[in-house]
C-alpha cells in the first residue's frame, strides 16, 4: 500500500493546493471584478493573459519561470541582491508556479459570476447607504457564491494535478517539492507498478469525487 514517502507527497500536495487556492482567491477576486466591470481597451489582452496557462504546455510556463526566477534571471538576481534564496527547487518557487498555472481556473468562474450579477442590485445597495466596498461584500460576494465554490474546487484540483510545471521548476525533492504526481512518476520509473497503482487509483478517485461534487454544486443552482 502507501509508503511513508507516498504520504509525505500527499501531505505536501494538499499543503500546496490549499495555499495556492488561498492565494489565488486573494488575487483572482479583485482581478475578476476588474475584468467583469471594465470596458477599457486592456480588457481583451488581460483576459487573454489570464487564460494563457489554459493553452500553454505546462513545461513552457515552467521553463520561463525557471529562467526568470533562477540565479541568472532578473527576479532571481534581485532576490540574491537582497540576500534571499532563489526560488527554483523550493516549495515557495513551486507555490509561485502553481499560482500562475491555476490562475485561469480560479479567475474565470469568479469573473463569470461577477459578469452575470445584476448591476442594479449594486446600485440599489448604494442607494441604501452602502459604501461601494460594503455593497461588494454584502451583495456581490454572496450572490457569486456559486462561482467562488466552483473556483475553489477547480483551483485546488488543478493544482493537485500539475506535473510539468513541478518538474521544471520544483524538481523532485522529498518533502519540499515532490508532490503526488511526481511521486507516481518516480514509482513508474522504478518499475514499481504496485505502488504506482495505489497512488494513481487515489488520484482517479479524487478527480472523480471533485467532478461529481462540482456537478451536484451546479445542479443545485
Amino acid at each position, binding site marked *: 500500500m502507501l509508503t511513508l514517502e507516498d504520504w509525505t507527497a500527499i501531505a505536501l500536495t494538499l499543503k500546496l493546493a490549499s495555499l495556492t487556492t488561498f492565494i489565488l482567491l486573494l488575487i483572482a477576486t479583485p482581478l475578476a471584478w476588474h475584468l467583469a466591470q471594465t470596458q477599457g481597451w486592456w480588457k481583451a489582452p488581460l483576459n487573454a493573459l489570464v487564460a494563457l496557462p489554459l493553452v500553454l504546455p505546462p513545461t513552457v510556463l515552467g521553463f520561463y519561470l525557471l529562467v526568470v526566477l533562477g540565479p541568472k534571471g532578473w527576479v532571481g538576481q534581485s532576490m540574491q541582491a537582497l540576500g534571499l534564496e532563489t526560488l527554483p527547487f523550493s516549495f515557495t518557487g513551486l507555490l509561485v508556479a502553481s499560482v500562475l498555472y491555476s490562475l485561469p481556473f480560479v479567475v474565470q468562474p469568479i469573473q463569470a459570476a461577477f459578469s452575470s450579477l*445584476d448591476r*442594479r*442590485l449594486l*446600485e*440599489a*445597495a*448604494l*442607494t*441604501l*447607504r*452602502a*459604501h*461601494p466596498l*460594503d455593497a461588494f461584500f*454584502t*451583495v456581490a460576494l*454572496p*450572490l457569486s457564491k456559486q462561482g467562488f465554490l466552483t473556483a475553489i474546487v477547480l483551483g485546488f484540483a488543478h493544482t493537485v494535478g500539475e506535473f510539468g510545471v513541478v518538474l521544471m521548476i520544483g524538481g523532485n525533492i522529498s518533502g519540499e517539492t515532490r508532490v503526488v504526481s511526481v511521486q507516481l512518476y518516480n514509482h513508474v520509473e522504478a518499475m514499481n507498478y504496485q505502488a504506482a497503482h495505489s497512488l494513481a487509483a487515489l488520484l482517479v478517485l479524487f478527480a472523480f469525487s471533485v467532478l461529481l461534487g462540482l456537478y451536484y454544486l451546479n445542479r443545485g443552482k
Partner: protein
Amino acid sequence: MVMLTAHFQLKLEAFELQVQLQLPATGISVITGASGAGKSLLLRCIAGLESPQIGYCQFKDELWQDSSRRLFLAVYQRPLGYVFQEACLFPHLTVQQNIAYGRKRVALPQAQAHLELVLALLNIKHLLHRKPAKLSGGEKQRVAIARALAVNPKLLLMDEPLASLDQAHKHEILPYLRRLQQELALPIVYVTHSPREITQLADYLVLMEAGKVLASGALQAVLTRLDLPLAQSQRASSVIQAEVLAYDAEFELLQLKFSGGILSLPHTELAKGNLLRLRIYARDVSLSLQPPRLLEASPSLPAQVLAWVDHSSGYTTLSLQVGHEQLLAQLTRKAATLLGLKLGQTVYAEIKNAAILS
C-alpha cells in the same frame, strides 16, 4: 419654496440630457415624457447614479453636487430613497433583511413606530420572513418601497415603480403611494409615462422631450396648456379639486362642490366635507351655447372659452375657465366649427363623467 435645484448636462453616445429644473418642497413631483425622453436618466442624475459632465444639484440647503467646484456627494451619502422600475430586492436576503439592509446603515433610521406604520400602510407585515423569489410582483414592489423608506430619506425618488406590474397590481399599489406621501410628509420625485399615474399622483408636473424639459408647473396648469402634447392627445384630461357636499342615497349620487359649481356623480357614499381630486377627460366634456334647462340630470356649468387648438386627428381641444379651475373639452373639429366659438365667449359645459382619484 424650492426643494430641489438640478442642472445637468450629460452626453451619451446619441443622446444629450440638458436640464435646468426646480422642484417644489412638498408633494409629488412627476416627471413624464415619451420613452427615451431622458426622464429616468434625470432621476439617476439626481440620485448621483450618473456622473454628468456638468452637474449642479442642491436639495433644500444641502449642496449635493457642483461640478464647477468639483463637489460630488456619492449616492450613498445622499439622504434619499430610491425605488427602481424592477423591485431590485436582494435575492439572498429575506424581506425583513432587505428592509433592514439600509436601515442599519444610517445614523438616524426610520423610528420603529414609523416603520411599523409603513409596513402596515404597504400591507407587508405577513411577508417579512419570505425570500423575494416567493413574492408576487406587487408584493416585491411594496417591499422595495418599504426598504427605501426605512432609511428615513428626506427625498424619495421613484423610477416608474409600477411599470413592470400588471394592471391589477398597479391598482394594488397606487392608493398606497398618495397615503404614504401624506402620512410621512415626504417629498417624492416620481417618473412615469402613464397618464393615469400622472393625474392620480402629481402635484407638480415636469414634461420632458428629447433630453430637455418642455414644461413644468403645477399639475392643473401643465395639463391644460394647449401647446403641449398632453392636451392634444386622445386621453387629454384636466384635474379639479372638489368637496363632498351631500349624498343622494336614492339615486346613489354624490354631490360635489367646486369653485365652478356643483357636480353630481354616481358613487358610493363619502363623508361630507371630504376633499377629492377629480379627473375629467376632455372627451367627457360637451358644450352647448344654451343655458341649461331646469331639472336636468347633470346640470351644465357656465364656462368661458380661453383658447383652443385643432390637432391632426380631426379633433379640437378647448380650454375653459370654470370658476377658478381650468377644464379641457374635446370636440370634433366639425362640432367646434358649427358652434362658432369666439374667445372669451360664455358656453355651458356638461361634465358627463369624472373619476375620483383620491
